[in-house]
């Protein structure tokens, strides 16, 4: 498992994300809203795949979350999603579950951060 971003690191690199979308902060807010909705759906699917030890699905969902997290410059979420993808590939259920716990924790951290500093 790769080293996770420091707890002190912000859950979003806002400057980098804004640069990718031409500095439009309203659009970033909209994208984060879409991301959150998608995250909840994928997290539910992941939970089910972890219970059923469906490694192919675990890998695919990890890959998908890794991509959308990278697009919005969410380093902690990206790393946790990548770990889930790797665990799915390695068929390592223990590692997959641990990484999923980290993913949910990172998501909570992001929500809290966004609530505190919405712009």
């Amino acid at each position, binding site marked *: 498992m790769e080293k996770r971003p420091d707890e002190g690191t912000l859950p979003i690199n806002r400057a980098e994300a804004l640069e*990718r*979308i*031409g500095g*439009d902060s309203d*659009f970033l807010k*909209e*994208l984060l809203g*879409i*991301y959150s909705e*998608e995250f909840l759906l994928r997290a539910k699917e992941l939970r089910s795949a972890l219970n059923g030890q469906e490694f192919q699905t675990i890998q*695919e969902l990890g*890959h*998908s979350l*890794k*991509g*959308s997290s*990278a*697009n*919005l*410059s969410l380093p902690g979420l990206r790393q946790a999603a990548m770990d889930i993808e790797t665990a799915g590939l390695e068929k390592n259920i223990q590692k997959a579950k641990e990484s999923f716990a980290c993913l949910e924790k990172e998501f909570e951290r992001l929500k809290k951060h966004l609530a505190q500093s919405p712009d």
Partner: protein
Amino acid sequence: MKRPAEAKKRASKKAMQILIADDDPVSGKILEKNLRKWGYKTLLAKNGIEAWQALQKTGLRLALLDWMMPEVTGLELCQRIRQVTKPNYTYIILLTSKDELQDIIKGLEAGADDYMTKPVNFLELHARLQTGRRIIDLEDHLLKTQKRLYELSTRDNLTALWNRATILRFLQEELEQGAREKSPTSAIMLDVDLFKIVNDTYGHLAGDAVLRGIADGLVKNVRLYDKIGRYGGDEIFIVLPNCSLTNVAKIAERLRLACARNKIKVPEGRISVTLSLGCVSSEAMDRPSVDRMIFACDRALYQAKHQGRNCVALSEPLPDSRKGTTHGKKTR
């Protein structure tokens, strides 16, 4: 003020539509926003199946395909699109987080033209899209040149009718198809009555205008699937698929009347000309061939001239040998 060529180029870029195929809505939205900002139209597909359906549209020349998609992957889409024949090339940029050398090779071998790793660097994407556009513009230029060369090699440049070689090829093809389908192929050979007098009186420019005017009138009065070619000088040859001798006579008469009733505009004013027409049908002929059809048409045209011009003459059945030719029958 923008120069016209520049404005045209800009308008053409604006009109270009790019397919974005990505199952991640965030990624899709970001791509869409940037592409629109650069003046492209976008079409967003949420999975491989939607993308494949969109790719059937001939207007799509540029596609950004995510490798990992449910149902059909971007890699499979590349392979599929390269297997079908489309009138235009589709330039494909494959997007993926797979960045191993072997993945890049696999993507390019599947038919992608370019490859970018996610998250996409948009300055780089902008530049890579320009590369894609250069290829597309080059293809457009080649297709335009090819079309122009086809026109030059098959059309008569004065009348825009088919040229002699092409109309004879059409006759050959229609005779073969008619034989397969057991349907008659007919032909008309016509020329302008006293065309030399037109040239001598009004000059060759007026003669050219007359030929163009006659060609336009013929095009308007034949059936959509008939083909008209300039045989040589003022002689025009028409191939009429699936057309009996009775019908070709009616069509020829229609052409004669239309020409006789309409005056043609020439630099010196408007002048009247008439046509003589000789008709033949494969149903009235043993062993129909291009040469025998032309021969019979010519003979009927000669009869029309002989019978006073401005009329239609039908060829009577050709004997097996060309000895003892029969006389054409005049219709008016």
